[in-house]
């Protein structure tokens, strides 16, 4: 059942729309990603979900509540980590946890939460002296203090080193496993691919695509990348005619072909037909990176007219994007 419903959300600053008809639903218990380039409107969307901004048009419901009109009740079931938000610099971790626990009528036990998040060693440290990773863990703890059903994490891992980022990912998975729905804003593909059950790709205030990470990858025109160095040059017209090939590049004799599984089959049979050997043949799945670039650049070029939101569940259409094959 949907716990967050966003329908036709529109929010404009001056004459620049930050959210322009955004529609999506988040199911209870999933990690839902909001992915997009900087300035795409991701934060505006989640701030409307948190009730910190009033939409110009459209409706937002969290567990049936209007985040603005029912803000007080919303705060009891939605916890948030805000982007670029700080605490009082001289407040210690312990004081922050106790203060925010006191804000809720029925808070979680802050001591066990601190332990779970690895903050028990820094309870006496002032906020201003915490490392980036510790600050983010504290913010996650604060977001969980009210025993929420939904947490919104806005670029939680931005600015963290790779190790702290991986710790944060594990943390997010643990939060989800404890039954909390997670709305995750990110601009890291790897993060979305690793964590999210479903992802809405936001571009210029619109939903450019909405699917599972695997679905997004396979639905994009470049789901497979074939690269090799042919033993002798191949006929260019024949290369151009390869089925489903989105692009063919020749980098000093090394061919890089973006396509699908069908392209792979055609390339292999073409090589066999011409008795050409493919040196250092690599066939890899495109990553969400490629899909994302494909989606955001496609809608960027059509925003002048009207970019249709390719919403829906096409995730099952092509589950096999073929495992990486080395040769």
């Amino acid at each position, binding site marked *: 059942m949907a716990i967050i419903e966003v329908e036709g959300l529109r929010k404009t600053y001056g004459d620049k729309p930050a959210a322009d008809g955004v529609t999506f639903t988040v199911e209870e218990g999933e990690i839902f990603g909001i992915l997009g380039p900087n300035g795409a409107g991701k934060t505006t969307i989640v701030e409307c979900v948190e009730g910190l901004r009033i939409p110009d048009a459209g409706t937002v419901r969290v567990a049936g509540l209007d985040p603005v*009109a029912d803000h007080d009740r919303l705060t009891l079931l939605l916890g948030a980590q805000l982007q670029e938000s700080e605490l009082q610099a001289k407040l210690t971790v312990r004081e922050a946890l106790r203060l925010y626990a006191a804000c809720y009528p029925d808070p979680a036990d802050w001591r066990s939460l601190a332990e779970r998040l690895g903050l028990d060693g820094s309870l006496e440290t002032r906020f201003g002296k915490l490392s980036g990773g510790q600050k983010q863990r504290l913010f996650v703890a604060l977001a969980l203090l009210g025993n929420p059903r939904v947490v919104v994490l806005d670029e939680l891992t931005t600015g963290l080193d790779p190790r702290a980022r991986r710790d944060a990912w594990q943390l997010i998975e643990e939060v989800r496993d404890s039954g909390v729905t997670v709305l995750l804003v990110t601009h890291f593909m790897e993060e979305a691919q690793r964590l999210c059950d479903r992802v809405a790709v936001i571009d210029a205030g619109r939903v450019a695509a909405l699917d599972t990470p695997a679905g997004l990858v396979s639905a994009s025109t470049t789901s497979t990348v074939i690269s090799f160095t042919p033993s002798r040059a191949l006929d260019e017209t024949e290369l151009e005619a390869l089925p489903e090939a989105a692009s063919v590049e020749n980098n000093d004799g090394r061919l890089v072909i973006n396509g699908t599984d069908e392209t792979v089959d055609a390339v292999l049979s073409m090589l066999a037909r011409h008795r050409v050997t493919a040196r250092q043949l690599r066939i890899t799945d495109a990553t969400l990176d490629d899909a994302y670039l494909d989606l955001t650049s496609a809608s960027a070029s059509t925003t002048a007219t009207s970019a249709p939101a390719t919403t829906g569940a096409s995730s099952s259409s092509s589950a096999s994007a073929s495992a990486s094959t080395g040769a």
Partner: protein
Amino acid sequence: MSATARTHNSTTAPATSTPGAHLAVLKAEARLFGREPGSIFWIVVFPTALLSILGLIPSFREPGAVPGGQRVIDLYVPVAVLLALITAGIQALPPVLTGYRERGVLRRMSTTPVRPAALLAAQIVLNGAAALGSAVLALTVGRIAFGVRLPEQPAGYVLALLLSMLSALALGAVITALSRTTKTAGVIGSLVYFPMMFCAGVWLPVQAMPQLLRDIVELTPFGAASQALAQATAGSWPSWSYLGVMALWTACTTGAAARWFRWE
């Protein structure tokens, strides 16, 4: 940015935060206030220290130096009291409040059942309390060390003192409302601070000012406050015109602060 701030609608939403939560906010802010030695020095220590230094000058303890037969040190006790109020309201309060807004502390609080106004209220209460404590300290030291008589019209004195405090805090609130950043708040605070100190009589007690200057200064909140405190000290009820000037300033600056304050 103006229209984007969430407006707090107290009529439709049920109150979910408890009085205990507001007390927790006040306690946490009190601890933080205790960690600002600068603020504590300028609000609590400095006015009385200044009074003590002036009191050590022998001629300032001679009677008859100013019209009315009073000693200079007698005039400086209300000045020290007002200095504490002005410092708390205009110098200390606005940078803290704008900082809380600028750094997202208020937004962070808005995601909980407690409204961010609780943070503002706690800071206002703490600065007001520190200033009143400083006023009591100045009166005590003045009495014990320099034999300055205590207010002979205590009720009138307390009323004038509270109105002065409200004027100072409301002026601080309007500076907060008009400043986008902590830096701006500091600059505007200083620009307002010095004229207000002058009006309170820090350089020249209001009672010793030439008539024309005094007539003008009495229209400012702290010029009026200075006169009202002096009257109550001497044993008469402070003039309603002085109390009225302070009340009017407080009403106007509070209204302006409420009109222009932005939550982000």
